[in-house]
């Protein structure tokens, strides 16, 4: 029997939710925002097609945009937290304007800055990331509140024309830390080798 995806109060459990979403990733390329989303994705099992942020807060989604534009034939999934997404809020407009049919973003909204001690984040107040994404012009936006919404969310993340943004309301609280590599050049090398974009020596620039 698979463990339940929600707690007794019906709130989604992030670690299990991410595991469930990634179980259907096929060959998707995954970028993770710093903090708990990085650990959640690592907990689902490392692959060469993951790139994990450990800093540069606010840049996960727009990094996904760059990757999606460079690799139009592959699905790119960004998994990040509400605090990280909020720091890159302007990039929602950049992403919508650039257009990226193969890009999807999953925001794990726990209404707190989990990594820094569970302080309430801006989504604990009136801010609503799904509404901001709609306002920015993101074409497909979904709220995922309970297990009943999950099939629709997973469908949107992997098959709806992008850019897609799904906000999953998840329970507060920290899971066990599962730490992937934080070695930047190593991660780049493994990732690029896996998708065939590593090239040495580079073609020189000439005027």
């Amino acid at each position, binding site marked *: 029997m698979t463990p339940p995806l929600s707690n007794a109060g019906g709130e989604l459990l992030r670690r299990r939710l991410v595991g469930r979403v990634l179980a259907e990733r096929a060959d998707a390329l995954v*970028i993770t925002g710093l903090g708990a989303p990085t650990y959640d994705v690592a907990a689902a099992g490392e692959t060469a097609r993951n*790139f994990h942020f450990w*800093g*540069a*807060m*606010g*840049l*996960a*989604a*727009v*990094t*996904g*945009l*760059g*990757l*999606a*534009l*460079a*690799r139009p034939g592959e699905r790119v999934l960004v998994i990040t937290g509400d605090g990280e997404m909020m720091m*890159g809020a*302007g*990039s929602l*407009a*950049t992403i919508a*304007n*650039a257009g990226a049919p193969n890009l999807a973003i999953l925001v794990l909204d726990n209404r707190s800055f989990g990594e820094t001690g569970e302080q309430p984040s801006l989504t604990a107040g009136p801010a609503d990331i799904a509404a901001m994404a709609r306002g920015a012009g993101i074409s497909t936006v979904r709220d995922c509140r309970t297990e009943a919404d999950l099939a629709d969310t997973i469908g949107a993340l992997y098959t709806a024309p992008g850019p897609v943004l799904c906000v999953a309301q998840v329970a507060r609280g920290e899971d066990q830390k599962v730490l992937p590599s934080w070695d*930047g*050049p190593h*991660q*780049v090398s493994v*990732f*690029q080798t896996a*998708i*065939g*974009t590593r*090239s040495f*020596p*580079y*073609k*020189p*620039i*000439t*005027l």
Partner: protein
Amino acid sequence: MDQHWSRDVFRAFKSGNIRTVATVPDGGLTELLNLCEADSGITVITLSSEQEGMGLLFGLWLGGERAVLLMQSSGTGNCMNALSLPAITQTPCLMLVTMRGENGEQNPWQVPMGQGCRPALEAMGVTCFSAADNADVGTAFESAAQLAFEDGKSTAVLVHQHIIGTKEFVK
């Protein structure tokens, strides 16, 4: 007469396989951005803030594409923590910066970041190539691009304000 520096830089984009240009525009970038917009082989991505450039360029690089960020000097101040990404991953981050707040600047609000631009970039490990006249910009760009793409460095070409001219504020 020398041709406009934008043409030299644009030629380097084409010969160097730089196919994506990210920007928050500046008046001094108008000619270069027009050349890029008119070229079907180059995609111009408008950013809401310059720091997004570090993420966008990094994502493109992961996917095998070369890109450049074009911005005015005030925009470099928006990039500080974002520059951690190319630094820690040792991936290319190529920037071209049109300077404000230098000789002849009329808007005092441009001066603090204009003057702080180079030291701030250098503090984050960016190698800066200054171009003091029109004919210098192309070679400065070539050096910056080479160091970025061949050695995975963050580099910036700073196009001096006197090349671009000063913006007049007429009441």
